[in-house]
């Protein structure tokens, strides 16, 4: 039986009831993240929890870490400012698929490229939850949504391929069904020096289901279980067999120089110039 530690991390003062629908995956991902932080023995004092706007981005209000509920799409630049200003902080980010990849897509690839020591969990429910079920950049082609009444024309992003190609040090994917794997990935992401992306594939039983008849929360979780395959398994499958699968596991585990560490090296060079300046 797993120890329930979430109550030690919820805000003591009023921030409840939370906004999530019954069966939503957001609470599962939040629990995984809290457990990951707990298992790393981090003090609450050193953690800052940042988000953008969306259902998933409401999470920071509920935990007893210092937190910033930001602007739609801009969670990563907020987090970048915080981290660079005080590199001792552990900065974790929650960002929806729309938040991270549509309006925030440019920040996302640049954060990967910059490789600053931040861990972002992209909560991918394949839809815009908060605004009522519009098409998101990870919505499958042909799926339905409030702005895709004839089926979605666009092709979806592969979050993990994108992050790995853009240079993030750590990239992994797990579904909300695979709770312990998700927790482990978030933990590894936080431990990794550099930018870490964990895609958490979640059910949105209210809106995704409303437009696509995918059932209730439990049905959607079961579906996630059935669709998930490991990277090893995926390597043995044909493209046709992979069609409806969600490949889970670690996609990048690199050790490129982290941004704040690079900045510290740069400061040494600058200090030499300062000596010149002071000798005026």
């Amino acid at each position, binding site marked *: 039986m797993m120890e329930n530690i979430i109550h030690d991390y919820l805000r003591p003062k009023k921030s409840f009831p939370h906004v999530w629908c019954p069966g939503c995956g957001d609470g599962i991902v939040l629990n995984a993240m809290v457990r990951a932080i707990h298992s790393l023995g981090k003090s609450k004092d050193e953690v800052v929890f940042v988000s953008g706007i969306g259902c998933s981005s409401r999470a920071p209000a509920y935990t007893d870490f210092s937190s910033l509920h930001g602007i739609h799409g801009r969670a990563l630049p907020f987090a970048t400012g915080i981290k*660079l200003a005080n590199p001792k902080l552990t900065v974790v980010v929650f960002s929806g698929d729309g938040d991270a990849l549509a309006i925030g897509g440019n920040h996302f690839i640049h954060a990967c490229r910059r490789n600053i020591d931040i861990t972002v969990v992209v909560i991918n429910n394949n839809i815009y939850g908060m605004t009522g079920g519009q098409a998101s950049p990870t919505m499958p082609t042909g799926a339905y949504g409030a702005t895709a009444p004839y089926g979605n024309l666009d092709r979806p992003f592969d979050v993990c391929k994108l992050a790995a190609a853009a240079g993030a040090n750590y990239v992994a994917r797990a579904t909300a069904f695979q709770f312990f794997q998700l927790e482990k990935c978030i933990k590894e992401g936080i431990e990794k020096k550099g930018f870490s992306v964990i895609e958490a594939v979640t059910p949105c039983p209210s809106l995704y289901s409303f437009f696509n008849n995918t059932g209730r929360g439990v049905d959607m979780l079961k579906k996630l279980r059935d669709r998930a395959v490991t990277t090893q398994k995926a390597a043995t499958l044909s493209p046709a067999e992979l069609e409806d699968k969600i490949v889970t596991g670690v996609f990048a585990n690199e050790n490129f120089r982290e941004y704040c560490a690079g900045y510290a090296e740069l400061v040494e060079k600058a200090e030499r110039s300062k000596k010149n300046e002071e000798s005026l």
Partner: protein
Amino acid sequence: MLFYKLFKDKDGRKVGFVQANEACIEAALLAGMRFFAGYPITPSSEMASVSSEKLPMYGGKFIQMEDEIAAMTAVCGASMAGLKAMTATSGPGFSLKQEAIGYAAMNEIPCVIVNVQRAGPSTGLPTQVSQGDVMQARWGTHGDHPIIVLSPSTVVETADLTFDAFNLAEKYRTPVILLMDETLAHMREKITLPAENELKLVERKRATVPPSDYRSFDTRFGDVPPFEPYGGKYHFHITGLTHDEMGFPIVEPDDVVKAMDRIHRKINNNLDDIVKVKQFQTDDAEILLVSFGTPVRTCLGAMEIGRKEGLKIGVLQLQTIWPFPDKAVLNLAKKIGKIFVVELNMGQIINEVQRASQGKSNIKGINKYDGLFISPDEILSHILESKG
């Protein structure tokens, strides 16, 4: 690479022949600025360059972001982590920053935003002067929000108002905009910066309550809430949603009004401290030139020439343009029958002068919006023309 050099005079003050863009960053460093996030855009780019070179020497952080939205947002994050933070941009970039400026106003995040105005709309005339962003500086971000906007007219004043901008930002927990223009940005003048012991710097008020009693937007100590940075015993939440003292969302109409009133009151109850103007020969003036930013210099030139020819001209310089200096304008409007409002746009601040003067004076605009700077002769010919 720096294109200027500062020398120390015998009193330890840094002296140099610098552009306003350079002066602004030198002053900001003295004011304690330790974080700059930017994205290059003419005519403000020198500020990013100077910051990138100097900040690491001062234990500060410079970062070039992927766009102006990211730069402004990173500034908010860095300020919340406790650093005095700024960004600098121009026209198109200023447009992009607006949503995050609203976030800073809503969450009472101290920060300084420089907008070196160039002619617009859109890409406009990237290398040419304008003052077309007066209203945008006030109302660029959506919703009712408080803001402070300062506008320097010389390189020396750029440094002075940069100190003021940081001090006001810290004192009132608010974004402050320094509204410059292309002519000033690239103008070189001699400047003597204050020695460190001559500086009067304001730091944000810190919490005096224990962490368990901390509120993100505590109103028990006045209208400006004490600030604690991220990292440490104080755990708190902030959000762009309309929020209560704890930073949690609210929708109760009375609570909303209370929250909105306070963030405006903290500025509006302190106008004497915030609003600065300068008057030149207004005592006996029969004609008043009202202006702000670089055209003030031209107004002073026109005043000098005009007076020699018997035109009793005085000048009112608005150093603070938002909140608008209502009081100073009204007092002079009561005394002086003719007011010319000189601005490098199609007429923006003139509407405020008209409102503030309550019909007490005859007000005309002298406007230039062809991308060139205005000359004293142009001002004088407008004055003579209207005399008929």
